[in-house]
Structure formats: C-alpha cells, structure tokens
C-alpha cells in the first residue's frame, strides 16, 4: 500500500469487524528517537493463541484461498523500513496492534491522506478515541490532535458533522505536516 494511512484504516476496520464498541487509535511521531508508531486497541472479540500465531501468514487467514492480506502487508511495510509489528490479543477482551517504523527510513511510505482516513473512523458505529502527536528533536510536543466521538455526541456522526470534521482535520493536518518532512 502506498500510504501508511491505508494500513491504519485497515487496522481500524479489522477492529470494527471484530465487534468492538470502543477503538483507541494513537499515531505517535517522535523525531528525537526517529520513530513513527501506530497503536490500535479494541475491545472486540479478540483472537485465540493459535489464530494469533497465523495472522501474519498471508496464506492462513479466516477466508478461503488468500485474502485478508492487511496484517502481512503491514508487517512487510514496517520490516522494510526498520520497524516491526506487535500484536496482542485475548479472546472476548480485544486486540492491540502496535506498528513501528523508523521515521526517517527511505523505504517508509508516507503517512498519506490522514484527514480523510480519520474522518472515515468517525463514520464507524463504535466509539473512537483518536490521538495523533508529534514530538520534535528536543522532546517537546509540538503538535497534537485529540478527538473522542463521545464529544460529538456518539458515532456514527451524521453527514454534516463528518463534513465539518473533515474540514477541521484538513486545516489541522496542514499545520501538523509542517513539523515533519512529509
């Protein structure tokens, strides 16, 4: 996938499909330690140990033949850019996926269309808690975006609110991307 935002959307869609009632999404960019990370935590149906072991394998997903390549592609994207993916899951409790990249790695795909992607999260029928922060070389938090669907009166948001949110995010991300190279 060309953009990391598509991987993030895929993770959040997985959580929604797992029947989550609340999904916490964190994007952290730490330019001092040169790390970009995604963390997606849900309270969905979770995976058992056996499935968890197979989830990175492109040939053993829940569907016939091959499909559900989201996690294998994410692993590849992270590993080819000095990173890794950690997945923790408990049946009936939920799943946490943590993906890490070396921020400055040449083969790290750009973050991409975050405003669209984050707007799409809030069109989902569960509570979304979103946090994106950028920490500069000196360790100072220079930009942060915190959104909780509870503050909008719950999800899914209506079309008008979603459009307003998209506009807000466009402005925020235009500001935020000034702190990083892309």
């Amino acid at each position, binding site marked *: *996938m060309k953009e990391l935002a598509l991987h993030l959307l895929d993770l959040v869609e997985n959580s929604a499909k797992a029947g989550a009632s609340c999904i916490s999404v964190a994007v952290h960019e730490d330019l001092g330690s040169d790390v970009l990370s995604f963390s997606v935590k849900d309270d969905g149906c979770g995976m058992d140990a056996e499935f968890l072991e197979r989830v990175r394998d*492109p*040939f053993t997903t829940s569907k016939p*033949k*091959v499909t559900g*390549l989201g996690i*294998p*592609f994410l692993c*590849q994207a992270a*590993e080819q850019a000095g990173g890794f993916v950690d997945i923790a899951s408990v049946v009936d409790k939920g799943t946490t996926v943590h993906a890490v990249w070396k921020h400055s790695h040449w083969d790290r795909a750009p973050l991409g269309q975050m405003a669209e992607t984050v707007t799409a999260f809030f069109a989902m029928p569960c509570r979304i808690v979103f946090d994106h922060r950028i920490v500069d070389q000196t360790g100072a938090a220079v930009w942060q975006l915190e959104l909780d669907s509870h503050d909008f009166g719950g999800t899914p948001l209506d079309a008008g609110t979603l459009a307003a949110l998209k506009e807000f995010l466009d402005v925020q991300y235009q500001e935020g991307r000034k702190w990083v190279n892309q």
Partner: protein
Amino acid sequence: MQLKELAQELDLVEVVAPPDSTIEVSGGYVSDLLSDVMGRAAPNCIWVTGQSHPNVVAVAVLTDIAGIIIANGIMPDPDTIKKAKQQGVGLYSTTAAAYTVVGQLFRLGVGGCAS
C-alpha cells in the same frame, strides 16, 4: 512464449519450478508495490519485482500470475521459497536489474499486460 522458454532465454535461476512450465505467458508486469500488482497485473503474466517477502507469493496466487522473477540479484527469503513450493508458484531469480529483465522480455515479444 512458454514459461520454460522464457526462463531459458533470460538465463534465470529456477528457485521453485512452476507446476506447468509449458504455460503460455500472457504478458509481463513490473512493480514492487503489491497492492498495485493485485489491482493491475493480468492472469498468467510474468511478474518482475525486487520484493522478496513471502507476500509476493500470496499476491501471485491471488492474481493467477504464471511466474515471479525476483531481479536485481535479490535472493527470495527462505519463507518465500517455502510458500512458493507449497502454493505451486514458479519462482525465479536473476542478478540482472529489473530494467534489463523487462527489456529482454520485451525483445522476446512479451508485451505489457496491465489490466
């Protein structure tokens, strides 16, 4: 052109033999972006890539690709070789650059096959 003729002409190293090397190659595609290959490569084509991850085999199976050429002297990961054997996907490697491989294929009459 048949897969085996093509492998011979390009002097490819056959890492994993295809189940049927007499298969007629429909055309060629070159890309390192797997989602792009899934969306655009045509069935029975030969795919030239610099990627060596096991995911390439999954993409080849999904897209019914006749064979994978891993170019630029990159060796496929051991797990990629294992998956290709399990799934019956022809896997070749070459020290030639992807650009050169594509040029040779074109000269042999294997055209582009983007769908």
